[in-house]
C-alpha cells in the first residue's frame, strides 16, 4: 500500500509556505502545516478564505506559485523545482492524493462498479506488464478490489446501477470508494456534504469516520463543525489566505483566540 | 358571374368530350393520339363553313394559357402580349370580337374539336405530331436556338462539327436541349443539363462549359452586355427552330381567311409594330417573315 512506504521519522504530509495568486488577488499567502499518518485534518473558514484553493493545490488541480509539498519527507511539489512540474511527474505524484468533490462528479455513463474500476484498468493497461500476458487476472483483481470497497461503504448490491439511480448520499459514498481505488496516501474531501440534505449527510460522515478507524489519513474541507470537532485530530481555521488559527478541536472550538474565529464560530 | 358560368359550361363541355374520347387520359406529352380518335367530331364541324359559324357567333374564342410575352396580364390587370394584340388586330379586320379563353394546355386539341374554342393562339409551336390534329396558319414568328461561346474560342468553334468534342449545356427540357440531342454533331458532345438558361450562361462565362444552346431572343438580350460581354453567338449554325403559328380545326376555312389578313398586317407594317413592343420579338418576326 502506498501509504506504508513512508517512514515514521517525518510527518506524512508537510506543506511549507504555499502561496497562490489569481491575477492580483493573493488567495494563499504562505500556508504551512503538517499531518501525521492516520490523522484527520479539518479545514474550516468562510468562503473565499482560500481553503478550497489549498485543497486544489494539494491535488495539482492548481499549481501553487511558491512553497513546497512533501509527502513522507519527499517533495512532490516544489515551486523552485521545474522537473516536478513535468506532466509525467505530476501524473505520478498526484496519485499520492485522492479527492472527493462537492458534487460527486461520478461518470454518468458508467455503472457504479465501472466508475470505480475505470481509472485502475486504464492505468494497468499502461503500467502493469502483467496486463499484456494475463489480462484476465489483472481485471479480476481490480474488480475484486472495487467490490471490497463497495462492501465497505455498504453499496455492494448497487454495483450494476447507474449513478442517476442512486441518492445523493449513495453517490457521494461511491465517489469516496472511487477515490480509494488508487490507494492514495492522503484522501482529500472538498465540502463532501454541502450538496446533501442532513439525512444523507449522516451516511457520508459515517463512511468518513469508518475510514479514520481504518487508519486513513484525510484532509477535509468542511462546514460541518460538529463533524470537525468529533472526527478531526487537527483543525485549521483559514481567513484571507492565511492560517488564522490551528490546533486540536478542543483548542479551536472551545477556546478560540482569534477574534475572526470567534465571530466565525458564533454564526 | 357570367364569366364563372361560362367557365363552368366549358368545363362541362370538356368532361363531355373526355367521355366520348377513348384515350382522353393519355399521359401528357403524347397528345397526338388523344385527338386523332376524335377526328369524327372535327370532320362534322368542318363540313359547314367554320368561317360562317364564327361570323354568325360574332366572336372568335381564342384558347390561351397565360405566359409572357405572348398572352399575359399587364400590371393593371388587362390582358396584353404579342399574340393578344395580334389577335385583336386580326379580329378587327374579320369583324368579330376576340374572346380569350384560358385552357388546360394538355387539353387544347379536345377544346378545339369540341368547339369550346375556335383556335389556339398562344406561341403554339408547329410540329408534325400536331399537324395531324389541327391546321396551322402561316408561321408568324420563328424562335431560333443558337450556340453561344466565349469570345476567345471564336476561332475554335465555328460549326457543329467543331463542337462535337466540346462540353455543352442547355436548360433541361428546353428547345435548346432538343436541338442538341437531335443534331448529329452536337449529340456527340458531352452534355450536362442546366437548371435554367441563366445558370447555363453563368456556367459558360465561368468556363465550366465550352458552349451552350439557348433561345435566340435570350442570347440577343444577354450576350455582349454586362458580365457577358465576352460571350458571342456562333454565326451560321442552323439548329432546329421553333415556328409559331395559329392552330385551327382540321379543314377549317378560317385558316385561309386569317392567312390573308396576316398578309395584310405584314404588308402595312402593323405586325412589325406589334412585335417591336416586346423585347427580342422583332428578330423572331424578321426570321419568320423576311
Amino acid at each position, binding site marked *: 500500500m502506498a501509504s506504508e512506504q513512508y517512514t515514521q521519522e517525518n510527518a506524512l504530509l508537510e506543506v511549507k509556505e504555499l502561496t497562490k495568486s489569481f491575477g492580483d488577488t493573493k488567495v494563499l499567502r504562505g500556508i504551512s502545516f503538517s499531518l501525521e499518518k492516520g490523522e484527520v485534518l479539518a479545514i474550516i473558514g468562510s468562503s473565499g478564505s482560500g481553503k478550497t484553493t489549498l485543497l486544489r493545490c494539494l491535488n495539482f488541480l492548481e499549481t501553487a506559485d511558491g512553497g513546497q509539498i512533501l509527502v513522507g519527507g519527499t517533495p512532490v511539489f516544489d515551486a523552485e523545482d521545474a522537473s516536478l512540474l513535468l506532466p509525467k511527474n505530476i501524473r505520478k505524484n498526484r496519485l499520492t492524493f485522492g479527492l472527493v468533490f462537492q458534487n460527486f462528479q461520478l461518470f454518468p455513463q458508467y455503472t457504479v462498479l465501472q466508475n470505480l474500476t475505470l481509472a485502475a484498468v486504464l492505468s494497468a493497461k499502461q503500467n502493469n506488464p502483467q496486463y499484456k500476458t494475463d489480462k484476465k487476472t489483472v481485471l479480476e483483481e481490480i474488480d475484486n478490489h472495487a467490490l471490497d470497497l463497495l462492501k465497505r461503504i455498504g453499496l455492494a448490491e448497487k454495483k450494476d446501477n447507474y449513478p442517476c439511480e442512486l441518492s445523493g448520499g449513495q453517490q457521494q459514498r461511491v465517489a469516496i470508494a472511487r477515490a480509494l481505488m*488508487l490507494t492514495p496516501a492522503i484522501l482529500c474531501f472538498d465540502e463532501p456534504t454541502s450538496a446533501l440534505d442532513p439525512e444523507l449527510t449522516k451516511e457520508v460522515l459515517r463512511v468518513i469516520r469508518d475510514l479514520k478507524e481504518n487508519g486513513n489519513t484525510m484532509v477535509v474541507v468542511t462546514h460541518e463543525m460538529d463533524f470537525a470537532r468529533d472526527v478531526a485530530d487537527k483543525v485549521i481555521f483559514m481567513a484571507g489566505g492565511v492560517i488564522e488559527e490551528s490546533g486540536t478541536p478542543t483548542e479551536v472550538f472551545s477556546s478560540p483566540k482569534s477574534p475572526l474565529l470567534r465571530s466565525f464560530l458564533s454564526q | 358571374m357570367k364569366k364563372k358560368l361560362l367557365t363552368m359550361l366549358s368545363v362541362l363541355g370538356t368532361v363531355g368530350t373526355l367521355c366520348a374520347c377513348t384515350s382522353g387520359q393519355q399521359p401528357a406529352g403524347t397528345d397526338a393520339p388523344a385527338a386523332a380518335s376524335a377526328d369524327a367530331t372535327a370532320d362534322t364541324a368542318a363540313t359547314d363553313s367554320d368561317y360562317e359559324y364564327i361570323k354568325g357567333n360574332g366572336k372568335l374564342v381564342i384558347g390561351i394559357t397565360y405566359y409572357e410575352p405572348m398572352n399575359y396580364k399587364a400590371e393593371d390587370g388587362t390582358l396584353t402580349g404579342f399574340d393578344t394584340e395580334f389577335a385583336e388586330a386580326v379580329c378587327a379586320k374579320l369583324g368579330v370580337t376576340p374572346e380569350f379563353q384560358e385552357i388546360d394546355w394538355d387539353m387544347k386539341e379536345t377544346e378545339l374539336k369540341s368547339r369550346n374554342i375556335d383556335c389556339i393562339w398562344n406561341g403554339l409551336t408547329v410540329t408534325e405530331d400536331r399537324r395531324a390534329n389541327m391546321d396551322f396558319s402561316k408561321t408568324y414568328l420563328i424562335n431560333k436556338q443558337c450556340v453561344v461561346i466565349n469570345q476567345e474560342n471564336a476561332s475554335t468553334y465555328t460549326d457543329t462539327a467543331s463542337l462535337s468534342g466540346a462540353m455543352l449545356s442547355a436548360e433541361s427540357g428546353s428547345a435548346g436541349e432538343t436541338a442538341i440531342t437531335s443534331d448529329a454533331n452536337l449529340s456527340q458532345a458531352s452534355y450536362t*443539363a442546366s437548371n435554367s438558361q441563366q445558370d447555363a450562361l453563368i456556367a459558360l462565362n465561368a468556363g465550366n462549359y465550352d458552349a451552350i444552346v439557348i433561345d435566340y431572343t435570350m442570347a440577343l438580350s444577354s450576350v455582349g452586355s454586362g458580365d457577358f460581354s465576352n460571350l458571342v453567338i456562333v454565326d451560321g449554325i442552323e439548329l432546329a427552330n421553333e415556328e409559331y403559328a395559329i392552330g385551327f380545326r382540321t379543314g377549317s376555312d378560317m385558316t385561309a381567311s386569317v392567312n390573308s389578313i396576316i398578309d395584310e398586317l405584314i404588308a402595312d407594317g402593323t405586325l412589325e409594330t406589334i412585335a417591336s413592343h416586346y423585347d427580342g420579338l422583332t428578330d423572331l418576326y424578321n426570321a419568320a417573315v423576311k
Partner: protein
Amino acid sequence: MYLLLSSETNQAADFLSVTAKLAGGFKTTLLLFFLTLLFAIPFGLLFACISRMRFKPLRYLMRAFIYVIRGTPLLLQLMIVVYLPGIALQKPITKWEIFHQNVPLAYFCGALFAFSLNYACYFAEIFRGGIENIPKGQYEACEVLGMTKTQTFFRVILLQVIRNIIAPMSNEVVTLVKDTALARTVSVIEIFFTASEILRLQFIIWPLFYTGAFYLLFSALLTLLFGILEKKLSRYWK
C-alpha cells in the same frame, strides 16, 4: 368498363414510371446526404477543436470563418464553389484534371465540397456547445484519477458530448436532407431537378409535389433513428 380499366392502367404506369424516375434522382440526393455527413462530422469536430484552441490567432480565424459560412446562404456558397474558380482564377471546375472531363462528377464534387464545409461549420458550433456544457468537474475527476487527456476525452467526455448534441444534431441532419434540393442549381440531378425536368418535358406538375413524399419518408426514418439513439443514451441520465 374496358375504357375505365385501360385509363387506370395508363395512370398506374405513369405513376410507376414517375416514381422510378424520381427514385433515380433520390439516389443522388441520398449520396449527397451521406457523403456530406461523412465529411462534415469529422471536419466539424476539427473546427470545434480549433475554435477552442489556446493559440488565439488560429482560434479567432476559425471562429471568423465559421461566422462567415453560417452568415451566408448555402446557395451562394454553392455558386462560389462552382463558378468562381472559372471566373476569378480561369480554372473552371469542370476542367480540373482530377475530374477527367466528367462534368456531372465535377459538379457533384463541387456541391459536396460546399455542403460539407457549410455543415462542418454548423456541426462545429454544436460540438463546441456540447463540449463546453460538460461540467469542469468531470475533467477534474479524471485528472485526479491520473487519466491522460486522451483517455479523459474518449472514455468519459465523448459520450456525454454525444448526448448533449443529439437533439441539435438531429435537427441539423433533417435540415440537410431538405437542403440537398439546393444542389439542383448547380446541375446536380437530384430528385428535385428530376421532378422539374418531368414538368418541363411532360408538363405535369404533380411529381414536383410527389418529391415531398420521398423527403418526408426519409426524414421520418432519421427522426425515428435519432429517437432510438436518444432513448438509449437517456438510460444513463436523469
